[in-house]
Structures are given as structure tokens and as C-alpha cells.
């Protein structure tokens, strides 16, 4: 299983991840090598096996419906790249 540069670019865009043109081939090679590791799994039959999402077989705990949070906007926005009148700002989005 090998990844070509086009695929790498497509994935990179899905992940909104800027990568240098010059590095793309290296990424393609590394990812392909990792994918080769993956093929080891296919030899094992898992038809009867349930996927395991969590180490421990526990159920979700439920929280009471109560408001416990207070307004911390000032503190939270003091570390924000760009805010104005309480809003987080990003370049204009048009749709």
C-alpha cells in the first residue's frame, strides 16, 4: 500500500494542515511505510471479534442537569488571538 503525493495533499487539506511542497514526498514515503506495517493485521481473522473502543467495558455515567458554570469570558478571551466586543474574530466567512 503506497500513498502518492496527490493523496497526501488531499489528506492534508482534510486536516487543514499546511505542509511544504518539498516535504510531501517524504510524508508520502513515511506514510506508505507505516501503511505497510498495517497490512500485518489483515492476516488475522477477526470475523467473530467485537471492536474494542475502550480498555474497560464500562457504561456512560450521567450528569444531573444543573447550571454550575459562571461567566469566565474575560479570562478565556485574554488568551484569544483576536476578539472584539466579546466575539472571537476570524477572517470573513462567506457562504
Amino acid at each position, binding site marked *: 500500500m503506497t500513498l502518492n503525493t496527490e493523496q497526501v495533499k488531499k*489528506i492534508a*487539506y482534510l486536516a487543514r494542515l499546511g505542509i511544504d511542497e518539498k516535504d510531501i514526498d517524504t510524508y508520502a514515503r513515511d506514510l506508505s511505510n507505516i501503511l505497510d*506495517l498495517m497490512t500485518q493485521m489483515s492476516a488475522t481473522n477477526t470475523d467473530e471479534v*467485537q471492536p*474494542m473502543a475502550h*480498555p474497560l467495558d464500562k457504561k456512560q*455515567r450521567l450528569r444531573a442537569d444543573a447550571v454550575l458554570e459562571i461567566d469566565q469570558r474575560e479570562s478565556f478571551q485574554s488568551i484569544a488571538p483576536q476578539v472584539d466586543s466579546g466575539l472571537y474574530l476570524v477572517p470573513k466567512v462567506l457562504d
Partner: protein
Amino acid sequence: MHNKTITELSKALREKEFSSVELTQSYLDRIKKHNALNSFITIDEELALEGAKVADTILANTNTNTNLLTGIPIAQKDIFCTQGVKTSCGSKMLDNFISPYNATVVENFNNAGAVMLGKLNMDEFAMGSSNETSFYGSVQNPWNTRCVPGGSSGGSASAVAARLTPAATGTDTGGSIRQPASFCGITGLKPTYGRVSRYGMIAFASSLDQAGPMTRSVEDAALLLQTMSGFDTKDSTSIDIPVPNYSASLNNNLEGLKIGLPKEFFSEGLNNDVAQTIESAINEYRKMGAEIKEVSLPHMKLSIPVYYVIAPAECSANLSRFDGVRFGYRCPEPKDLNDLYIRSRGEAFGDEVKRRILMGTYALSAGYYDAYYIKAQKVRRLISEDFKQAFAEVDVLMGPVSPSPTFGLGEKTADPIEMYLADIYTIAVNLAGLPAISIPAGFADEKPVGLQIISNYFTEPHLLNIAHKFQQTTHWHQLSPKGFE
């Protein structure tokens, strides 16, 4: 005083041999003296001494029944959110991130009256096995400053080994506590998944991450775990079972202990000196009356591919929140929204992080999900079944932590795969969610070697007991690297 164990320091503080302020200052001085190790990312002297003052007043007012950690300096891996203090996770992305809140683990230490010395260096977002992916540069191994301390908790291991802090926290997703502990000749415990709260611990792979203590002795590890552990309503994966007294059973007799040696841990690829060190360590247990038998974990070899699907998949989503909108790095003059995302993430994430995000994004993308992610989750179950089988026969499993001891800085950075393969003995434990510890067991050409002990779910007391007995009969954990005595 920097060679004392936490128990000894705690006693000294109560007997007013020295104050917490004096103790804290002496460690701050050592940190400065040895800053070449680069084991710290942030040191907040003022905050530390302030904390020490508070601890001293507590100690002055109530002497006996305060928490044993009151007044004891502790250093935090920079993956734990610390209110008002930079929490970088080893990344340029969070170089400007002053956390507005505390991780539960940090809160627990604060409530115990421990003093935070600073924040420790680590691989970027805990992705790495040598601490060389850190935005803040690599960390030296005190035993050989041209070698890596291991990773991702490299700063923690290096600082504890060099006596720059009595103890530190670490996190372990695929061996990130045990491997650096092994490389730096200290004690590192990865608890059962769900034993220590993940709230405020910046997520790498949520179903694998678990925090634990990194100390110079098992006795100290028990003390730290006591404070770190516990049910947390803020973490849905935290387990609601009472925390036992980890120190109480440390000296229990090991007569009749059944130790299993997974043959897959001793197969090809294992360095001979390491193999010998491990065998002699196991002999110590034989002497203590333990029964040794070979067992098998047939699917263990698949833990590498399984891990390198699941961990990147989870991380690819976990790291999407770093988008330059609400906190963290934002690229200069973004020309539109996508430019903001792509450049902020592209400029602030390092190579290894990018590689894993790409890997995970690919494994989850349409058409590959079943072949990679679902398949990996199924094999993950087979791997944890292997452990269940083994624990039906024996009490604990023993083996090496890593196929070889520490290696030279820059030696393995060229080929990521080679680095991944070295995680073979630690990863399966995370996939199953089991507790495991690494304790100093000797040396392979003057480089520390750790013995790994794996036990069943929530049997940390027994695990610590077994590890402690070894340190009662061996001196490896007491040795300090030259120049750091």
C-alpha cells in the same frame, strides 16, 4: 537533601530540619545549575516559593496528620494544564497558552500541599519516544548527556534522575512513562486506565492516555499515586472505585508469587545485554520464592500496527481544536479562513505531529475506516484477551521495557518507523489498559535498563509491593549519575 526519598524529606520537614522554602530553593538552584539538561520548559520561582511558604505555615500549625506531600516540591509534565502558568505540551502551538484552569491531577497535588517547581519538557503533544520532537529542543540523559532520555516524558525522567526534583508526573500512551524511566534509571508507573483523571491532561489518544508518577523509588511512587488517583466526575472514563492505601502493602511477602515471562518479550530484536540484565533481575524474584513460568501473548506483535492506527486516529481529531481561533498560535495576516487554519496548524505543528495527524486522518477517511480503524479495534480486543488468558495462569508478567537502552541524540530521527518499532514491549499494555511499572534493574554498557512488571486491572497495590521488594534487595534505584550526586 536532594538524595533523600520523599518519605525522608517529609520527615525532615516535620522535624524542622529545613523548611519547604529552603528545600524548594535548593531544587531551584540545582535546576539552574543543570539547565544544560533542558529538562524544564517553564520554571516559576516566585510561584514555587510562594507555594512553599504556604506549605510551611500548614506544617507549622498542624505537624503530624498532614498529607505526606505537604511542602514537597513536585514538577509537572507540561501536558497538564496549570492555571496561570504556560502549558505548552512541548509545542509551538501552545507556546503562548497560559491555561485558565487546573488539571484534576494538578488540583490533587495543590490540595495535598505539594509545591510545583515547574513544567517539564516532553515530546510535542507526547508524540515521540526520545523527547526530540519537542519545540523546546531535546533533553539530555544525565547518565550520558549525548544520549536521549526517552520519551515522551523525557523531561520528567531526566529531571528525576538528575535530582532536579524529588518526583515528577508523566503520561503514558504507548510507553511514555515506562520507557524514559527505563532509559534514565528511575521508577515509572503507568496505572490502570481510568485510575487517574484525564481532565486537564492535554489529550493525545484518549482511549490510551494515562497519567502516573515518575520517582526514584517505588515507595515514592506509591505516595504520588495516592494523591494522583481517584474518581473524577469531570472525566467520563474515570472509574468510580475506592483508592486503596498504596503504601500499606509494600512489604508483603512474595512467597508463591507466580511470574509469567511472555516469550514474545524475549524474541529476536532484544539486545543481549538488556536480556541478561532482565534475566538476573528475574533471578532476584526466584530467590524471593517466586515461581517463574513462560507464557505467551500471541497477538502482541500486532500491537504496533494496531497502535499506529488507533493513536493517530484519535489524535487527528483531538488536535483539531488547535485552529488558531480561541487560543494558541495564529499565523500572521491570514488571507481567509482556510488560510488561517492551514497556516496556523502548518506553522505550529512539528513533523511527527503532522505525520500522525495525516496518518489518522487517512485511516478514518471514507473507504479506509473499516480496513484500518475497525480492524485495529478488533485486533485490539484479541490483544487484551491474550492478557486475560495470561493472568488466568500467573499473577504478573515481567520483561524488558525496551529492546535496547538509550541511544545517541539524533541517532534515530531519520526513520520514524525504527523509532515506532522500539515501542513493541510497552504498547500492548496501553491497548489493554493494564497497569505496569518500570524499575531500575541494572545497566547495559553503562546505560540504565528497566525491568517492566505488568499486573492485572486495578492491582496497583500488588504491583507496587512486588516492585518495592526488588528495591529492598537491590541498589540500582539508589545509584545517581556522575555529576548529579
